[in-house]
């Protein structure tokens, strides 16, 4: 009974090893013959899928588990064990890579892992994420991301590394300025006021603050943990955190210093509130603040709070600096293959295709509220059209995708520490009045030492 299967598997492994070594040897990428073989219909494969959405009870876990069940129904020969990352004290999504690292040490990493984009460099160079474009061929990826409702062009290549696709973008969001329109109206500001620039946001926030007597603006990007969108704020002002050749840290540049100085001015003017990410979210929900620039993923939570609190929630795009265009960056994650076994790799690829299909985004968007990366689903005739019509808050988020720039991952093993150095420096300047120039340049130097 077992022998033929064992033989088949051995043969498969041999083919896989050969194809892998072929991949390793070829500098031009994959060839048609090098791709991992398809699974035969009766070939049973088990894979483990690690997703941080499973950390959270309710719609997050239910939706992912529902999709896994749908996949297993469509692929009866593949069994998927879905698991959350190992425990950590941070919020969901903050320990995706360390969890995989620990399991790798023990020799049983998940075959498919949902990893955040800040670890892309590390995942591709250190963690052993497999180049999917080598495994299945670029055409297969193009076909999967295309179709009747293709991925948004800006979303397609967010997890590409050195010309190869290492991950397929899965769920992400962009920074959106949510605001309490009722509070604005009470302060004499029209609900649909123009909030396209920081100056206009400050003027509106000043009006609300004058009415309430307390700071009314929260910006998640300038507090610890918000670096993904701080990168967007930097880019909107012509600054960057890392040079194009990925060798030089640049958040001590004049443009970067100017950016944090402008943000610090909001604190000095009494409109920017000093609060951590959770308090910011709860601040807007409770009515303590009136504006919150945060990931569009919090929309569902804020909509509930607004409905219960009897106030009107509205959303605007990320503000710009004067006439310079605002450059939103993305948060979120992509799906990576970590398996070395060709059969499991093939099963993983089938699973990833399913989890990024039209059906998956219909479920993910309507149930969890994440942005559908196949954006045309929200257009007339698409299956998410009705849902999008009912969610007008989605519009600024979708519109921003056209200007999206990727969340930059830092090189080297200390990418988390580099991010931490930047987060602390930005907080010190923006909220605690530290000298922008010396603080940012000092942070840049320390971060530079970390990536050498």
């Amino acid at each position, binding site marked *: 009974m077992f022998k033929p299967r064992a033989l088949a598997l051995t043969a498969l492994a041999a083919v896989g090893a050969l194809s892998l070594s072929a991949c390793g040897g070829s500098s031009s990428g994959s060839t048609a013959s090098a791709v991992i073989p398809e699974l035969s219909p009766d070939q049973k494969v088990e894979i483990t899928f690690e997703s941080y959405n499973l950390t959270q*009870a309710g719609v997050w876990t239910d939706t992912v588990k529902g999709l896994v069940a749908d996949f297993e129904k469509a692929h009866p020969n593949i069994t998927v064990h879905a698991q959350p990352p190992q425990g950590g004290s941070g919020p969901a999504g903050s320990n995706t890579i360390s969890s995989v690292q620990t399991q790798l040490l023990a020799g049983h990493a998940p075959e498919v892992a949902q990893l955040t984009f800040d670890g892309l460099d590390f995942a591709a160079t250190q963690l052993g994420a497999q180049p999917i474009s080598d495994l299945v061929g670029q055409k297969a990826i193009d076909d999967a991301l295309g179709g009747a409702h293709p991925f948004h062009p800006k979303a397609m290549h967010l997890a590409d590394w050195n010309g190869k696709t290492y991950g397929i973008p899965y769920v992400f969001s962009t920074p959106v300025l949510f605001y309490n329109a009722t509070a604005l109206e009470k302060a004499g500001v029209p609900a649909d006021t123009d909030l396209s620039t920081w100056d206009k946001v400050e003027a509106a926030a000043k009006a609300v603050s004058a009415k309430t007597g307390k700071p009314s603006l929260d910006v998640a990007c300038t507090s610890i943990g918000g670096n993904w969108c701080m990168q967007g704020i930097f880019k909107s002002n012509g600054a960057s955190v890392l040079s194009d050749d990925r060798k030089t840290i640049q958040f001590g540049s004049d443009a970067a210093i100017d950016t944090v100085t402008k943000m610090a001015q909001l604190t000095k003017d009494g409109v920017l509130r000093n609060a951590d990410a959770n308090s910011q979210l709860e601040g807007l929900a409770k009515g303590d603040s009136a504006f919150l620039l945060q990931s569009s993923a919090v929309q569902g939570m804020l909509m509930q709070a607004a409905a219960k609190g009897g106030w009107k929630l509205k959303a605007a795009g990320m503000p710009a600096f004067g006439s310079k265009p605002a450059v939103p960056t993305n948060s979120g994650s992509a799906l990576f293959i970590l398996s070395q076994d060709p059969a499991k790799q093939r099963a993983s690829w089938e699973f990833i295709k399913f989890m990024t299909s039209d059906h998956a985004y219909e479920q993910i968007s309507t149930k969890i509220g994440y942005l559908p990366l196949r954006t045309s689903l929200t257009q007339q005739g698409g299956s998410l059209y009705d849902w999008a019509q009912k969610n007008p808050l989605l519009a600024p988020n979708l519109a921003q995708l056209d200007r999206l720039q990727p969340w930059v991952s830092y090189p080297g093993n200390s990418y988390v520490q580099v991010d931490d150095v930047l987060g602390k420096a930005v907080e010190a300047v923006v909220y605690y009045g530290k000298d922008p120039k010396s603080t940012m340049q000092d942070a840049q130097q320390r971060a530079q030492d970390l990536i050498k």
Partner: protein
Amino acid sequence: MAFVLTRPAAHTRPAAHTHPAAHTAAAQVGVAREADDVVAPSQHRLASRSRVKVISAAPAHVLLAVLALVSIYPVYWMFVTAFRPAGDALSTNPLPGPVSLENFLTVWQQIPIGSMLASTFGMALTLAAAQLVVAVLASYGFARWSFRGKKVLYLLFVGSWLVPFQVTMIPNYLLVSQLGLLNTVAGVVLPQLCSAFAVMMLRQHLESFPKELLDAAQMDGRSSWQTLWQVVVPNLRPALAALAIMLFISAWNEYLWPSLIMQKSTALIQIGIRAFLGAEGNNWGAIMAASTIACLPIFLIYIFLQRYVVDAFVRSGLK
């Protein structure tokens, strides 16, 4: 979520943490003795002295009362938030109400809280029992016999207590993985079978155990093994009960280690509570409701076995 009713430190240095009641009692005994010594005690002097005592003790009592309130407030807040409607979870009204079971319903529907409680109870009980048995045997060995290397061995025990868990976490994880015990309660329990704190505490108790009793048992012809179970353990019952409660509570509150080992299952309550924390906002109402449920077994155990805890404190304090 960590809910500790008693800190181990109070046990290791009993003299420094004598129960306040004991202090008062001792003070009163002292006063009475002084009164006996005086041949013709002046009632007036005695009364004024005790009044001075009361007045001088007042600030301490006020301080203790304030500390007690500060300690109890988070627990009070947990109950108040848990019993509020889900929409009022962020309310800052210090008074309870309006009462709703909505959060408990959410918890019941979204996580398997019943089975989580049962398996956490099983895990904590197994761990506490195993640690207690190891501690009884080890401390008996330390207290009863003198042997070469005893001090070094004891220092090693103490030393292991001083090594932070984070240092041994990954090697232990790898070992458990190699043993094939990942995602099992045995994997959670095995590396923690020996609690250095428990050994230290029991050794202290055993050091002050009357040697005459041990000698008498020996003369009666009891073996060391029989002496341990027939003489020592019955006499140590209050101390063992107190220790068992503490070990149980700390096992019950374990989070990081079980979350590494039991990754695939939602078997343990402390991991279950975490399911309501998220990057897109925390469901505080459900967190508080789940925490309230998680605290209840500990409360019950403490209420029913409290006498043993107090007994142990008072005895060790007076010895």
